[in-house]
């Protein structure tokens, strides 16, 4: 356990010292400033729309950060040869990979936390309210999504080069919601073979839109928070996909020559 934490700490230190996370936070500050300026010009009808946009952009920025961080962990270790002294220590490859994964998730959490502080501060400054229960569920589900994306990132980085892994990870993230929504839309127009393929894809691809509760935050008056059974089901759903990607990553890394 200590080995796991030590490796994850090194990933977190990298994330913090490389200042990439701060760049993202700076981006969010500009975003919040944009939201505030909307209020300043008293276009109050649009405020909600901009807040929705703000949440979406924060989610996207964090997701891209996670994809890039997870995809580059192992290729960078191989490229810089820093993996040798690390793997010469008495740790298994699984602990190494798990430590890296935990580090990426902690970096994502740190990034998300900074985003949320900025978002909450901006919302309260504008006189809005934060539905805390919805907000907590939103953050939790976003972190589940980040877990799915980071395990996918690790797997991709082990079977292709860094550029290809990042590109595919980002494409996967952006298309997954469109694709899964599209499946239901075109299903009726397909033949039997096409329908079978769509059903298979529907179950194989994680539906990332399930982890997005930004709409609930914005319309919390109309909708209550999710119940614990739904949250548990979503947790299992995320863990299933993360587990499969993680297993693939372990299998790819287990006998990889360094």
């Amino acid at each position: 356990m200590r080995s796991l934490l030590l490796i994850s700490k090194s990933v977190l230190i990298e994330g913090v010292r490389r200042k990439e996370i701060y760049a993202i936070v700076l981006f969010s500050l500009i975003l919040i400033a944009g939201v505030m300026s909307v209020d300043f010009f008293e276009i109050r009808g649009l405020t909600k729309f901009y807040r929705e946009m703000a949440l979406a952009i924060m989610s996207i920025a964090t997701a891209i950060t996670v994809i890039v961080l997870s995809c580059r962990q192992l290729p960078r270790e191989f490229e810089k040869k820093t993996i040798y002294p690390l793997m010469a220590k008495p740790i298994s490859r699984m602990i190494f990979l798990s430590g890296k994964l935990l580090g990426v998730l902690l970096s994502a959490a740190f990034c998300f936390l900074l985003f949320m502080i900025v978002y909450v501060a901006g919302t309260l400054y504008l006189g809005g309210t934060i539905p805390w229960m919805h907000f907590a569920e939103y953050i939790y589900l976003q972190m589940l999504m980040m877990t799915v994306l980071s395990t996918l990132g690790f797997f991709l980085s082990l079977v292709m080069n860094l550029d290809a892994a990042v590109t595919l990870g980002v494409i996967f993230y952006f298309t997954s919601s469109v694709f899964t929504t599209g499946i239901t839309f075109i299903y009726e127009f397909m033949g039997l073979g096409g329908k079978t393929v769509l059903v298979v894809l529907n179950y194989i691809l994680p539906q990332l839109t399930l982890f997005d509760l930004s709409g609930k935050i914005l319309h919390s008056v109309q909708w209550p928070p999710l119940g614990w059974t739904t949250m548990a089901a979503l947790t299992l759903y995320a863990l299933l996909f993360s587990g499969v990607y993680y297993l693939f990553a372990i299998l790819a890394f287990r006998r990889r020559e360094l």
Partner: protein
Amino acid sequence: MNSEKPVIDVDGLVVEYGRGKKKVRAVDDISFRVHQGECVGFIGANGAGKTTTIKVLMGFLFPRSGNVSVFGESAGTVDSRRRIGYLPEVALYYPFMKARELLELYGGLHGLSKTQLGEKIPRLLETLGLGGKSEILLKHFSKGMQQRLGIAQAIIAEPEALVFDELSSGLDPVGRHDLRSVLLELKRRGRTIFFSSHELTEVEALCDRVIMIHKGKIVTRATVQDLMKPLNVFEILFEIQDEKEMPGEVAKHSPVRENSLYRVLINDVEEYSRAVSALASSGARIKSTSSKSRSLEDYFIDLVEKREGKK
């Protein structure tokens, strides 16, 4: 032959890179053992198979065939690595970390407690000439400083065996001297040391035994003493009235006549002193004596050239 269980046991190791027609055999059926407390130098030209062998020892590469064990455990297992300190050929460390943080990471992975690390790290950095550098980011470290830090991470947990790939690469003469002192101290404390190096003077100074590898095959294995013996040549030029009076201690080294003088070459220093005494008491006139020592490097170059068919 040492009957104890070897620290490193390589038996019929074969390692290949690539597949199909592009397959290259980097290590070709080599076997050797390193015993507790020994210091063994692993010498070879670039591409000879040194790093490949060491990578198999550490579990970074998997052999095509053969068995490799460390402390009786299969090479590469967590247990086998628990008792080894390793310095890679190219030592690069996380540029975003400080020297202290890096050693805390590596020492922690070896199971050292925070208190132990707090005591060891400043002492180790001081010993390796990095005193006062613990809070500096590694991106500001020179190549030599990184190499010193690499040595620190390898020995921080005081492992029973040390495996160094290219021992003093990147170190200046002062760094080499410091490193030699550290290794001699570790050797004195009974640590097993196995290292590859291009610096054959280092091998001469530190090792008990040498294994030479060329094109994936072991070409020589000997103690440094045995290896060096024929490399030290003592020459005596002398004059003697009657060849029949040649002392046996000299005659057995087959002196060669050159005009009125005889020249004899002797490898062993004791035999050389006996020959000088015998010549003096036989009434021969000793014109000159000299010693010509060839280095291990000369020997190695000769060996490689012979193998390459250049000699």
